[in-house]
Every structure is written in C-alpha cells, then in structure tokens.
C-alpha cells in the first residue's frame, strides 16, 4: 500500500512535467513566426546600443551631469535607507517578540507587527512612489518615503528573524545575572546579530541605489531619469555613461560593505 502510494507520487511529478512540456510546445504554435516578431528597426537599434557600449560619451558636460545625478540617486537611497533602518529596528524588535515575556503575549504581539511589516513590503517601491507623487508631488520626499517603507518592511522582517534565531544560552545567562529585557537586548541580542544585520543592510543599500535610479519611471530625478532622457533622444553613448556611473556606485558600496564586514567579523 505504502509502495503504491510512493510510486503514484513519483508518477504525479512526471505527469505534471509532461503537461507543462506539452503546454510549452502548444504555445509555440500561437506565435506568429514572421518578421513582425521583432520590429523592423529593432536589430539595427540593438546593434547601435551595443556599439555605443565601447564609445560612451565622456565629454565634460555629460560627466558633470552624470556626477550630479549619481549624487541625487545616492542621496535618495541613503536617506531612504536611513529611514528604513529606523523603521526596521523598532518594528523588527517588536515583531521578533524578544521584548515580551510569556508565550501568550508573544502569540499576540508577533503576528501583529509581522503583518504590518508584511503590508509595507507587499507594495513595491514604484507603487509607493506613485502614491507619494500623487499625494505630495515630485519632491525628493516622495522618493525617500517610497524607498523607506518597503525597505523598512524587508529589513525589519529579516531583523526579526535574526533576533529570533539568536542562541538562547547567553540570553538566559544574562537574565540570570539580573538583566531586564531591555538590557538583554543591548548586551545579548544586538551584539549577536550586529555583523549579519550590517552586511544585510549594506546589501539592501545596494538594492536601494538601483531602486532609486528607476524612480524616474514616475518622474523623479536621478541617474534613471537621465538614462530615460538620453534613450528618448537616441543618444546611446550618453546612456552608457550613466549606466557606468550606476555600476560604479554599486561597486563602491559593495567595497565599503566588504570593509565593514571584515572589521565586524574579526
């Protein structure tokens, strides 16, 4: 009986694979395999964009513009992340349940804060950006809040998970030595998660720079906005200049994050 059931499970997977394979094959028939699949000028444009990679526009004017917009993008990301860290700290600590005693209280508090964190990150930063641009207009605050809320939700959730996974022996020892919940947080929980939360926050900062760059989709300035303008003007060489600046930003943050990690882990 047991064996039969096992082999049925195995077959079920194969049957599913077969159905998916067939569905894919069938979908190929509905594609119109003619010249309209890729629009006529597409290949030429792709070639132009590809070639422009080797000849980015390095004129002084563009470089200064790239530098300025990099600064805008970076400052939105930095401000957004700072706010996100504050949100993540308070909500994360609350959602981990380490500050309340008693199983019953934990069961009440944890889902309450966890669901709020879930709400913040369920909505993408671009959607938040829409909402903020609609309500407070095209101001830097729209970008900053739009980044801070979903990133606060993501960081807070990870922070809460990390706090919950901390080894319990040192915490119990601190409590036996007379530490209150808040003291146990300073002397036990936070030092133990410091290295991992820092490196995760740095990684998220990197992501925030990328997100900040595409805030242009809703009209907020920065590197993405310049990329969009240059694309519209068909200045692919300028596009690459801005893209390179974006890459440099990410690499610089990565290097900084490695430095920090090394210092914290040793």
């Amino acid at each position: 009986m047991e064996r039969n059931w096992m082999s049925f499970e195995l077959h079920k997977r194969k049957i599913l694979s077969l159905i998916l394979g067939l569905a894919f094959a069938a979908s190929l028939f509905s594609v119109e395999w003619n010249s309209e699949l890729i629009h006529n000028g597409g290949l030429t444009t792709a070639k132009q964009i590809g070639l422009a990679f080797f000849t980015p526009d390095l004129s002084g004017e563009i470089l200064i513009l790239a530098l300025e917009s990099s600064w805008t993008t970076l400052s939105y990301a930095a401000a957004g992340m700072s706010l996100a860290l504050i949100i993540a700290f308070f909500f994360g600590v609350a959602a981990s349940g380490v500050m309340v005693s008693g199983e019953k209280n934990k069961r009440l508090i944890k889902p309450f804060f966890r669901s709020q964190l879930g709400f913040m990150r369920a909505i993408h930063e671009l959607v938040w950006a829409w909402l903020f641009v609609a309500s407070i207009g095209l101001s830097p605050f729209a970008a900053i809040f739009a980044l801070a809320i979903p990133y606060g939700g993501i960081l807070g959730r990870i922070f809460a998970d990390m706090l919950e996974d901390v080894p319990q022996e040192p915490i119990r020892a601190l409590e036996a030595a007379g530490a209150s919940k808040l003291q146990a947080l300073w002397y036990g929980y936070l030092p133990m998660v410091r290295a991992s939360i820092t490196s995760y926050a740095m990684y998220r900062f990197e992501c925030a720079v990328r997100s900040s760059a595409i805030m242009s989709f809703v009209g907020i300035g920065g590197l993405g906005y310049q990329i969009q303008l240059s694309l519209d003007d068909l200045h692919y060489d300028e596009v690459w200049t801005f893209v390179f600046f974006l890459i440099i930003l990410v690499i610089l943050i990565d290097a900084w994050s490695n430095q920090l990690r090394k210092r914290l882990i040793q």
Partner: protein
Amino acid sequence: MAEIINVNRISKNYERKIALSSLSFTVEKGELVALIGPSGAGKTTLLNMLGAIFPPDQGEIVISGKQIAEMTDQKKRAKKIGMIRQQFDLVGELPVIHNVLAGRLSDWGVMKSLVSLLIPQDKDYATAALDRVGLKDKLYERTSKLSGGEQQRVALARLLVQSPEIVLADEPVASLDPARAEDVLELLVNIASEEKQTLIASLHSVEYARKYFDRLIALKNGELFFDLPSSSVSDDHIKRLYSLKEHS
C-alpha cells in the same frame, strides 16, 4: 551556621519520564556541595529549579526563609542566586569587559547599561575581577577569541562582579581538558570560600568532587542515592552509584 537552602520533597516529570521524585535536603550557608550521579540522574533539573529557571511540579524550595516561587524580582534574585554553566553563556561578539560588567546589570538602570557599552562604567569591578581570574590583559579582547578555559574564567569574573550569595554551577568544566578543568574548578571553589558563598556544582568527575568539595550529594534515577561528607564517601559508594543495574 545558618540554613540557606531548604529543598522539601520536590518532584519533576518530563512527559512520562520522572526527572526527580520527592527529593529533600538542606544546605547551610558557606557549604561547598558537589552533585554527582550518572547522566540523566536529574542534576541539571535540580540546579535549574534552584535557580528558578522553572518551578518543581510538587514540593517547595525555600531560600533564606523565602519561597523561591515568591522571588519573582529578577534583579533581587540575581543578588541571591548566580549561575554558571558549560561555556556558551557569554556573548562572544562583545569585548570581555562588557561580558564581565553584565554582572552589574542587576544594579544598573537602562541608561547606565547603555552608556556603559560606549564608556565602561564601574570599570574597577571588571579589572579587579579579571585580575582575580588571571585575565587582566584581556580586558578589551573580543570574547569569542578566547580559549574555552579563558571563557570560563570570564564567566567566573562575571559571577564575581554579580556577587550572589549562592552559586549554582552546572557542569562548569565539562568541555575543558583535564588541566584547564582543574584550574577553573579550583578557582571556582577558592572564590566561593573566600567570598563566603554557598556553592552547589554538578560534576561528571567524582575525583574532582571529592578533592574540592566538602559534601557530595549523589542522585540516581531522580532520587537521592547518598548525601555524605566527601571524606566518608567510599569507592564502594561510587561503584554502586555508577553501576548500570538499578537498585543494586
């Protein structure tokens, strides 16, 4: 000498297994007691109940005339009872000094303990305690970088700073090599007798128990097997305690 601990017919069950059944004994102030017995005899369970980590199912524990169940203020309890276990008790990411000063947390408010992480407060306590355990030069070292024996000394230094009347030690030297184990044990016993503390330690090694402690309490299958001054414990007692046959 005055009675400091009175254990009266305590029992504890885990699921269906009996961890301790109807155990009674008293300990006088300043006594050095070793708990011995085979694994699973209930030594750790007993120490955890003495440390108010969890309550007994039946019976009562009275400390200095007060029911342990009524000592709910953690800060006051820390002045009375201190615990040390096998390693893992320290926060490895913190410098040694903060792990030692954690013994002051029962006296400090939230603000002072927070400030201390930046500018160590009551530093004299920490330096004196670390000097006593022979680690004066490791004040600012990251705790996780210390060896197992050194970490146990840091835990002792914390206990010195906390300065409780009763010290409960659960296998304090279990994960150390013999030379370091004896070192740490000797330090633990010396500190307890100099500070006039009452010490109850569970130990694997009968040899150490007889060498360093005044009194041995032996548990087997959750029951008191014998409770004797260490001088009157014979090899026959030990042999019967650790024999696999029950009620031999």
